[in-house]
């Protein structure tokens, strides 16, 4: 399988604190890598290093086997896009959806100025938001819709890698479900390569092909999804899995099917 992105022994320190300790990780093309771990384990720091928001203190990140320099070119920035946890904070409240989407399209010269409107509408259709939403502002949408707009913006520049940092943890459970379904659909449609970060193992199970577990800045396990969920390698993964609250089994007489 073709490699999309390689993280080679990356380390990050915040003052005396080691946030990432010699992390090496491969992302394959058209695969979803799920990254799990407790808060403070360095998941988000890793995402930020890959997106180029933090310069690592050691190691390097290569995209399509080319190392990404400290100062990335516009093209390199375009290749990796990120969706953040909180859509309220990642969308400019004073910009309409049209402005939010067209800014990225124009900056990266994806389409001509004349084509921008058409492309914006296509993007909104892709994330199931009505065209009339173009001239509305983020506060007029619900949390789930806002996250969809953030997804549309990330996809607008046709990135080769999409990083989703806890995209559903600020959402209600039923909305979470619909956003995850959108991710699965887009993944199949656009052949996305994705790094999906979550602390919710249910979410990871739903979306990932491979699972990586982080703890205190180290990578403790990297396995295919089925293997990880059925038979995790390390004691820590087992602890994580067994801490997930589970639903009671449906009774045999009940009308419930799961």
């Amino acid at each position: 399988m073709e490699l999309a992105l390689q993280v080679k022994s990356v380390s990050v320190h915040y003052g005396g604190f080691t946030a990432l300790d010699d992390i090496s990780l491969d992302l394959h093309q058209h695969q979803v890598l799920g990254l799990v771990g407790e808060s403070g384990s360095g998941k988000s720091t890793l995402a930020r290093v890959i997106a180029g928001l933090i310069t690592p203190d050691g190691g390097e990140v290569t995209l399509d086997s080319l190392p990404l320099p400290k100062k990335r070119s516009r093209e390199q920035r375009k290749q990796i896009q990120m969706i953040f946890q909180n859509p309220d904070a990642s969308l400019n409240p004073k910009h309409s959806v049209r402005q939010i989407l067209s800014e990225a399209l124009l900056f990266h010269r994806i389409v001509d100025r004349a084509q921008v409107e058409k492309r914006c509408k296509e993007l909104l259709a892709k994330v199931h938001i009505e065209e009339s939403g173009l001239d509305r502002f983020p506060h007029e949408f619900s949390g789930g819709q806002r996250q969809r707009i953030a997804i549309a913006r990330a996809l607008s520049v046709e990135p080769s890698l999409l990083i989703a940092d806890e995209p559903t943890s600020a959402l209600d459970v039923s909305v979470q479900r619909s956003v995850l379904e959108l991710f699965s659909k887009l993944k199949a449609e656009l052949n996305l390569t994705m790094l999906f970060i979550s602390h919710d193992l249910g979410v990871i199970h739903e979306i990932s092909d491979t699972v990586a577990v982080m703890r205190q800045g180290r990578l403790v396990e990297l396995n295919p999804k089925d293997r990880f969920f059925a038979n995790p390698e390390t004691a820590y993964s087992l602890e994580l899995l067994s801490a997930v609250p589970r639903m009671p089994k449906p009774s045999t007489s009940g009308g419930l099917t799961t």
Partner: protein
Amino acid sequence: MPYNAILEVKDLSLATKHDQKLVNRVSFALGRGETLGLVGESGSGKSLTLRAILGLLPRGVEKAGGIIKSDAVSAMVFQDPRGSLDPLCPVVKQLTEVVRFRQQVSKKAARGIALELLEMLGLPDSIKIADRYPSQLSGGQCQRVVIAIALACKPGILLCDEPTTALDVTVQKQIIEKISALQKELGFAMVFVTHNLAVAAATCSKLCVMKNGEIVEQGDTLDVLQNPQNPYTQMLMDSVLPVPELEGSGRIWN
């Protein structure tokens, strides 16, 4: 009152000043030592119901009808532990203040009770020597302090408003186990608000499912979850993402 109820809510309605109904004719009863779960999505009125029980309605929301009968002290644990602690006051001091005020004891005795409570909740011993600010504690530790503060009021009813939503799964498990153990030890009743049905299943004996300010289904937790009557309950259950069972191990929860 039906059986030995410690709290009875009857036809409770809450509305804004402009008569917009937020909670509509909600009724339930809670027995001594029981745990009642309120589940539903955000905006379904779970937290407002809880705040009405505590008598701490937000500005602009008023009780429009119904009665809340309770003969016990109630205390609340909030969702965001950092937000409910004073960031500029060390935690032992905060807890001591509550103990002193609620239990009417001397400063010195209050500190002793506070430290006892913290030990009961499993905070590190080092806190007895060097008091720490909330920002110097982890989220789970902060939540333990908040629970200690709630217990300092010697509540007959503990109201928990999504106490574990902001926490990691492993910490969530510890906190829930701690709360359950304390409940057995101290015998308080509990109203537990959550949107996670799996958490509700692990903690509550009775369950009320709320939607748009109304209770759409209520009953024993197992009955409701194994045989849901309302499509909304079924929808909530379906949205709990399954994690497959581990190979060669039994069920760990329940």
